[in-house]
């Protein structure tokens, strides 16, 4: 989802160098997604591969957190959202790389290397925007405020997550939340941005209850594939 939103910047970035940078992150993320979805299809064992899962599921069947399906907004919104995700993805991948599932660990190890670069890029930009001009500061702060209530969902675990964690396959989301809060607090502060204090958090994406944005995004993303069911590309 996030890769898709990032790819919407192609040809429209604020400077050529950044166009290339965002496309790189987009490619890494879609690459990771392809591997994870492929594994999911195999584990499900109903004959669905990564394309079937990406292009032929309805919105309510998707399990991503709501934060990643939100429209790209301005550059500040994209960067802050990316930063929030990168801190999470970095720590999640680090843990999953030690998963007792060999396949999962392999995918996560690759994701971890990539997440380090992504995090460096997004955290540097958060600082430049927060501590740049008045305008960039205002936009960055607005992005932080608008995104805050979506950040809790990343760390909510249900019984499936608990079982996976106990089995050594999944990650300890509570531990990740703590690291996330510390790092985010530190970077935002250094960027002269204030950390929101409200504790209300939206959720539902993991249960298939998404924002209205996802439907529109999927309409666009899936249209060609669905217009020619069974075709090869």
């Amino acid at each position: 989802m996030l890769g898709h939103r990032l790819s919407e910047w192609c040809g429209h970035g604020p400077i050529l160098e950044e166009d290339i940078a965002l496309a790189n992150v987009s490619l890494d993320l879609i690459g990771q997604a392809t591997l994870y979805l492929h594994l999911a299809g195999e584990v499900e064992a109903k004959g669905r591969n990564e394309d079937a899962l990406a292009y032929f599921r309805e919105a309510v069947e998707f399990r991503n957190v709501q934060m990643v399906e939100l429209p790209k907004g301005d550059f500040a919104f994209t960067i802050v959202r990316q930063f929030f995700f990168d801190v999470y993805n970095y720590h999640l991948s680090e843990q999953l790389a030690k998963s007792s599932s060999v396949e999962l660990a392999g995918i996560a190890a690759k994701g971890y290397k990539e997440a380090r670069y992504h995090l460096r890029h997004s955290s540097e930009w958060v600082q430049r925007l927060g501590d740049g001009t008045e305008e960039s500061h205002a936009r960055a702060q607005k992005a932080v405020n608008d995104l805050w209530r979506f950040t809790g969902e990343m760390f909510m675990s249900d019984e499936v997550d608990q079982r996976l964690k106990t089995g050594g396959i999944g990650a300890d989301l509570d531990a990740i939340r703590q690291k996330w809060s510390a790092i985010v607090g530190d970077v935002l502060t250094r960027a002269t941005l204030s950390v929101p204090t409200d504790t209300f958090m939206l959720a539902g994406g993991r249960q298939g209850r998404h924002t209205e944005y996802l439907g529109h995004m999927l309409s666009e993303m899936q249209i060609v594939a669905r217009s020619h069911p069974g075709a090869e590309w």
Partner: protein
Amino acid sequence: MNQQTTDPSEEALNAAFEARIAAGETIEPKDWMPDRYRTQLIRMMSQHAHSEIVGMLPEGNWITRAPSLKRKMSLIAKVQDEAGHGLYIYCGTETLGVDRAELVDQLLTGKAKYSSIFNYPTLSWADMGVIGWFVDGAAIVNQTVLAKASYGPYARAMIRICKEENFHKKQGYEIVATLARGTPEQKAMVQDAVNRWWWPSIMMLGPSDANSPNTAELIRWRVKRKTNDELRERFIDLTVPQAQAVDLTLPDPDLKYNETTGHWEHGQIDWDEFWAVVKGNGPCNRERLQARRDAHEEGRWVREAAEAYAEKHQRAETSNAA
């Protein structure tokens, strides 16, 4: 051509320059060069760079609708490559003493040209295959010879670019081949795309030699290596068998093979359409430029922020060191 007041030392410099060119030497940024050589290079190189950047838009249009994850990634990578190519060439152009901001300004105000082909709309997924096949194909025919251009930075940028461009063309043709042997709808989709892109692609190689006054001088200076008609002929010779191989027809009823010359002859090109598009009246000229202007405008605050941050932290460093 303006009359310059030449004096013996300038004549000597010119003669030495022409001799270096004739000897196949490479001209580097700090070497003496006639002003006209420099201005022609700036024009050619910046036009090339602008084309790469504007070229991201027609293909970028289909990223969000790419029908498989693999194709989605390929397309993003291709568009990203084009950004990179634009960047290599802008930086190469800057070695001639002009700032990128000025070049970008020329593009956005409509003063600079870019390849006419990018003023056509992409209307179906099949366009992604056909563009790779035809447009990158034509670009390769043009660029392979430029890899030996006389100006060092341009030639070096071209070598980097050619490696990546070949890959794009292959990917495009692979998409075309897959569609051509797919469902009847897919086959119709790709044939339609071929019908729309063929003529603009062969026009992309430039006006016919009779209408290209700059060509002779540029060839002497090894900034252009072949004439437009020569490049066009090469492109058509390469492409016709490729179309035959996937059972697609090219929309030229007069296309026929000449046994004597060993080349394919083509029908009448509608140069009126070409000039209309070059002058700004193609289907997408305004949209393309507007998109670039919007990106530039909306990016202004971002660029300013990065600069402000850099300044603040530089000052902090120097005052810490003091």
